[in-house]
């Protein structure tokens, strides 16, 4: 005798309904912003794609048309719902809204759209690498709040060693610094089972304090220790000749290529290899792996170290990929944005890359806006990336599921 128990019948989810409603209201809200704020400036906006070609969009009609479309989509979402297409609709709507915003800002003038997108990709580098560091840790069950500190440490080591021995040594030094800082996290979180969030914060403040102190006491009197020749963009043969995309993706520094490689490699390893299976297992239910003879402690140590190296590399981006020097608190919270990207990207490297690009775009737009005369105070523009973070993490991610054992110390005897 056997009994069939149906466990697949759906349970009504209030959470999903609420989220669907929020998305509907957001669309209507964007539509209204579009109608009342963005449709206020006449004139054409020019977006330069390549040197010889600029697209002109009429700002006012574009904003009005978008307003109507957004309100209509919002209404459909509220009354019928797009179901599984909700995210696609939302992404297209938000994307178009961003274009309308740029049209409004650039009306009567023009700017290089390609340059802005290139900037987006460049600026997403430390966020992507920081987020991968976060994913590697959290997937193995260790919460890594210390990404900010690891980026900052990497930036410092990259600047000093890069100045003394050249950029390649700078990169290696930055990664070593990241490993060193993550080793502190590993020992306290894994061996001594201290609360991982608290250790992470301690490392952030330690890193900020130490690098600021050394910058003031050592780098200021010895400017020769703080001047690096950064990596210059490398144009990939053939690919860089493609219009727009060639500039955006294939005329970049080493850091962009490495960070994309890091996304591909970490995804493949996490989902296709023995290491990945075990890593995900110890992040979800370490006892299950432990009772099958997997050495949970060793694997956690190793993954936290690797994560530190990745974050250190991300930190090296500042001196070696952009400005060629270290300044106090040069990372300015990017490590926390990376943490948001981990959640937004649902603990998946590709998701994290997407999130990093969104944050990179908001930074790039902020830079462009401060050059255009829009009337928006520049202080407000500085807030933009963080506002985007809040909205994205709080509103649109829905409830994403963290690795179950993240934050819990492993005790083999339990």
């Amino acid at each position: 005798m056997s009994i069939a128990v149906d466990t697949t019948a759906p349970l009504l989810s209030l959470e999903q309904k609420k989220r669907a409603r929020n998305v509907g209201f957001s669309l209507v809200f964007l539509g209204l912003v579009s109608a009342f704020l963005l449709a206020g400036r006449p004139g054409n906006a020019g977006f330069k794609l390549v040197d010889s070609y600029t697209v002109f969009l009429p700002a006012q009609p574009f904003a009005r048309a978008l307003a109507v479309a957004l309100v209509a989509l919002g209404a459909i979402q509220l009354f019928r719902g797009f179901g599984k297409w909700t995210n696609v609709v939302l992404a297209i709507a938000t994307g178009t809204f961003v274009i309308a915003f740029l049209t409004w800002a650039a009306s009567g003038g023009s700017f290089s759209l390609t340059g802005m997108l290139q900037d987006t990709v460049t600026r997403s580098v430390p966020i992507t690498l920081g987020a991968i560091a976060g994913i590697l840790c959290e997937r193995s069950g260790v919460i890594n709040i210390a990404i900010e500190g690891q980026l900052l440490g990497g930036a410092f080591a990259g600047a000093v060693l890069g100045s003394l021995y050249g950029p390649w040594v700078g990169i290696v030094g930055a990664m070593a610094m990241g490993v060193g800082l993550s080793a502190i996290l590993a020992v306290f979180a894994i061996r001594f089972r201290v609360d991982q969030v608290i250790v992470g914060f301690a490392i952030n403040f330690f890193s900020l304090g130490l690098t600021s102190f050394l910058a003031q006491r050592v780098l200021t009197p010895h400017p020769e220790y703080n001047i690096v020749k950064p990596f210059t963009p490398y144009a990939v043969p053939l690919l860089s000749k493609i219009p727009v995309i060639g500039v955006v993706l294939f005329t970049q520094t080493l850091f962009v290529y490495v960070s994309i490689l890091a996304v591909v490699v970490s995804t493949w390893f996490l989902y296709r290899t023995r290491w990945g299976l075990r890593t995900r297992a110890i992040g979800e239910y370490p006892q299950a792996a432990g009772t099958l003879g997997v050495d949970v402690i060793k694997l956690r140590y190793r993954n936290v170290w690797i994560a530190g190296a990745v974050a250190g590399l991300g930190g090296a981006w500042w001196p070696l990929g952009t400005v060629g020097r270290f300044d106090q608190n040069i990372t300015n919270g990017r490590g926390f944005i990376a943490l948001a990207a981990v959640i937004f990207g649902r603990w998946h490297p590709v998701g994290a890359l997407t999130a990093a690009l969104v944050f990179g775009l908001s930074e790039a737009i902020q830079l462009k806006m401060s050059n255009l005369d829009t009337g928006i105070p520049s202080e407000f523009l500085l807030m933009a990336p963080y506002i985007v973070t809040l909205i994205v993490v709080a509103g649109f991610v829905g409830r994403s599921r963290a690795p179950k054992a993240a934050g819990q110390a492993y005790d083999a005897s339990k």
Partner: protein
Amino acid sequence: MKLELRGITKRFPGVVANDNVNLALNTGEVLSLIGENGAGKSTLMSVLYGMYKPDEGDILIDGSPQVFTSPADAIAAGIGMVHQHFMLVPVFTVAENVVLGVEPTGALGRLHIDEARRMVREISDKYSLDLDPDAVIEDLPVGVQQRVEIVKVLLRDAKVVVFDEPTAVLTPSEIIEFFEIVKTLVSAGRGVVFITHKLKEALKIADRIAVLRRGKVVGEVDPKAASESQIAEMMVGRPVKLTVDKDTASVGDVVLKVSDLTVLDADGRTHVESVSFDVRAGEIVGVAGVQGNGQTELVEALTGLRKAAGGTISLDGKDLTHSNPRERHQMGMAHIPEDRQRQGLVGGLSVAENLVLTRYHDDQFSHGVIVDWDAADAIADTLISEYDIRTPSKETGVGTLSGGNQQKVIVARELSRDLRLTIAAQPTRGVDVGSIEYIHSRIVKERDSGTAVLIVSTELEEVMALSDRLLVMYRGRVVAELDPKKVTPMEVGLYMAGSRPDGAVVA
């Protein structure tokens, strides 16, 4: 393969968990290890599985001593274990869980997941376990999850399979299927250790029964020649009564009336759906069901710990759907919660403090904002002796007492006043046989004094023995109301699994 434990002793600070334990297991044999909670069964098995290092003694396989420093060593020596709490990663597929730790791989550690699937299918077919290698664990019923655990053990070619309380989470029909699997394993030449506290099951499946008490093997019995009460006496160390003595209920007016009650969780999922029933004065109504079918949420809604999303609850005709727990308590409702550690007791507070936890604010125990500890201590002394709470003193932290004595503290606090309704969830979970007897008799006594009693338990035998009327919950609904004297556990088990004895599917 012959497995032998010789003189195993394992000490923890303050306790000797295993005291010179000797056991032997031959191939093709089922050894049942039986004992109360805290008798040292789990510690012994952790020693065998390399999770603990014994302080003294040896593990021998075919006569040669082994040193296990981790589960990996035990697995390599041919020992497999199915833990009480399944060691399965909920978001992984069956195949991923099965191969974890022994993954078939290629270059760079690339996982051959097709090979893993094939391995699962092969074992599943060989032992007719009927498993889909691509199913995700969290979507599977516990009975199927247990079969995944068995495949894990078989894949590692375990010669000795240890099952730790394997039937605790199963429905009666799943238990029968499980016993079939055990028989297949044994006939394939493997040895099985079956750890349990259920006497009937040990008698049914075991070739030999070893009884453990306070860390020692107090005897081995032949199931063909032993009775339940004999074994129970060995477990507890004194004669125990295994049946519940009660007269016919003299039923009075309706006390608890539940109409159309619906309860949701924080995510908006429905756990209790339009449930209606009454409990009358002087009767015990039991709620049976497999864990996770809404019983927890039902009790939380009745006691005011969770908001009702719809419907009404009334006590003696007064609506209390929106009353808080203290108001309900003052209207004569007692609550023995299912999880002592989280709900009924504050582990760090003393026995005396826990005993007045629900009434320290009464005039009897307080003058304004000051608690009258003398009065509280006096009542604590009375209750400790009346309810036979074994504690070094009333100042002892309640968290250090045994499960049975913790439960007695709750029972004493909740039942030692005039009541209209007693709600008891899993009243004997983790409680030793001796205390079970006592708690059951208190509950029956409460009924006989005219209180309405609602018992919620996943131990089918317990609810059937205690109740005058039996409700069965399945997926948040009451799917049957039965007379426990007129149905068999098998029939109730069918309702618990969502079907009916005539084969139709409920709800």
